[in-house]
């Protein structure tokens, strides 16, 4: 197949080298990038530098690597937690090899799904609770919960958010951040339940991200079909509604492509 040749600016703009190293490029993009870097010294340097930087960043992360440390993508750079993703290359390498060989083993595919659900930072709380119609005690507990959330004390935050919901503040922010806190604790099953509460409430500012993070939770549980369904719903919503943040939409599309790469259609 003939493709329009890439330039180094294209490579940089689309982060192709980083995505190539992470083995998350769709096949046609990978083909174009490979054809480019074979004759491009600058992009060859970018790849070896990128691989070395990835290794160095990975080594600099001292937090224990467990599935429990997978967490949600987010906003505040100063709170960046160390990467917990040393296992991404392992699964991605296996997935790439399987793809080259032209077959898909069920176990390998589901194993490769789990890293796609990994998240490193919790969604940020901007501190603008909606107070209308809520019980005062519920609001106070919610505020305390979000203080714990901001301090990344996930268990305490989740407990307080449950208390806030029980006290009458059973709205989308409470359920959304409960889901996020649970996801940060790698309690994916309960996180799904919390995000489902948000989604079932209809269209709110939290609906899109709830779909995205519920997809992430499904991926952590290796439930590729469910994750793909949530992402498809989010992408459809992006077409029909105008309240989907572009970053969320782009992330959803990239995640959908990655799921396809590891073999879940």
């Amino acid at each position, binding site marked *: 197949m003939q493709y329009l040749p890439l330039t180094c600016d294209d490579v940089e703009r689309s982060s192709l080298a980083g995505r190539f190293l*992470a083995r998350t490029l769709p096949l046609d993009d990978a083909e174009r990038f490979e054809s480019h870097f074979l004759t491009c010294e600058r992009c*060859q340097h970018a790849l070896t530098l*990128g691989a070395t*930087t*990835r290794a160095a960043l990975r080594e600099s992360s001292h937090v224990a690597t467990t599935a429990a440390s997978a967490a949600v993508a987010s906003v505040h750079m*100063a709170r960046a937690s160390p990467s917990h993703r040393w296992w991404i290359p392992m699964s991605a390498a296996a997935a790439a090899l399987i793809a080259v*060989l032209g077959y898909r083993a069920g176990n390998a595919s589901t194993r490769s799904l789990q890293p796609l659900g990994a998240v490193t930072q919790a969604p940020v709380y901007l501190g603008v609770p909606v107070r209308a119609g809520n019980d005062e005690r519920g609001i106070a507990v919610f505020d305390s919960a979000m203080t714990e959330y901001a301090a990344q004390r996930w268990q305490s935050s989740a407990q307080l958010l449950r208390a806030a919901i029980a006290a009458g503040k059973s709205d989308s922010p409470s359920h959304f951040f409960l889901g996020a806190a649970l996801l940060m604790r790698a309690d994916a099953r309960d996180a799904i339940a919390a995000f489902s509460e948000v989604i079932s409430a209809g269209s709110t500012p939290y609906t899109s991200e709830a779909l995205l993070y519920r997809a992430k939770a499904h991926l952590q549980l290796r439930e590729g079909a469910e994750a793909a369904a949530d992402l498809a719903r989010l992408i459809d919503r992006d077409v029909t509604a105008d309240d989907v943040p572009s970053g969320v939409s782009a992330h959803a599309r990239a995640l959908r492509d990655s799921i396809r790469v590891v073999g879940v259609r």
Partner: protein
Amino acid sequence: MLLGSQMTSEESPERLARLGRGLCILALHELGDLDSANDVAQETLARITIAYHEGRLDDARFRDDAQLGAFARGIARHVIVDVIRSRMRTVATDSSTIAMVESPAADPLTALVSREQECAIHDALKTLSPADRALLRMTFFENATSEQVAERLHEPAARIRKRKERALERLRRAFLHPQSHTSVAAPTSFRSTLSLEPSRASGVG
């Protein structure tokens, strides 16, 4: 092995050397070990040279980087698949292949990197702010583009792009000049900064 000296273009040896490095990177990325990657690169270069002499790759296509890259990639992919198939035939008696594939060790491309370069990158990373290291993590582990990072951080994309460029440029200098990497930690080392090669457009892509 047939090499560029048999090609008509004066720049052939350098172009083939660059192509050889690219092929080695591609094969190493797929196969995980340097010996196999070198074999793939050599075999692919040999097939390209034969194709050139047989007229299946004319001079115009050879001189065009995009066409040469696409042609070389097609051949390299066939050679890589041959290697993988041969491994599959021996996999039952050679468990080391599986161990290699499933190893969580560093990216195989680091096999192309010297110890000095690795140390230089480690040192250069220490000179970055925590925020810039976090930015690189988003870039390398979450594959986020500058626009996606900007969206998350509620900062202008141009500012994120500039920060990313500066961080990567610092790493690139350390990487390309590992013997002088300690100068990165000293912002007042004006002389050593001048000695670095002119900055190229940055970006790991």
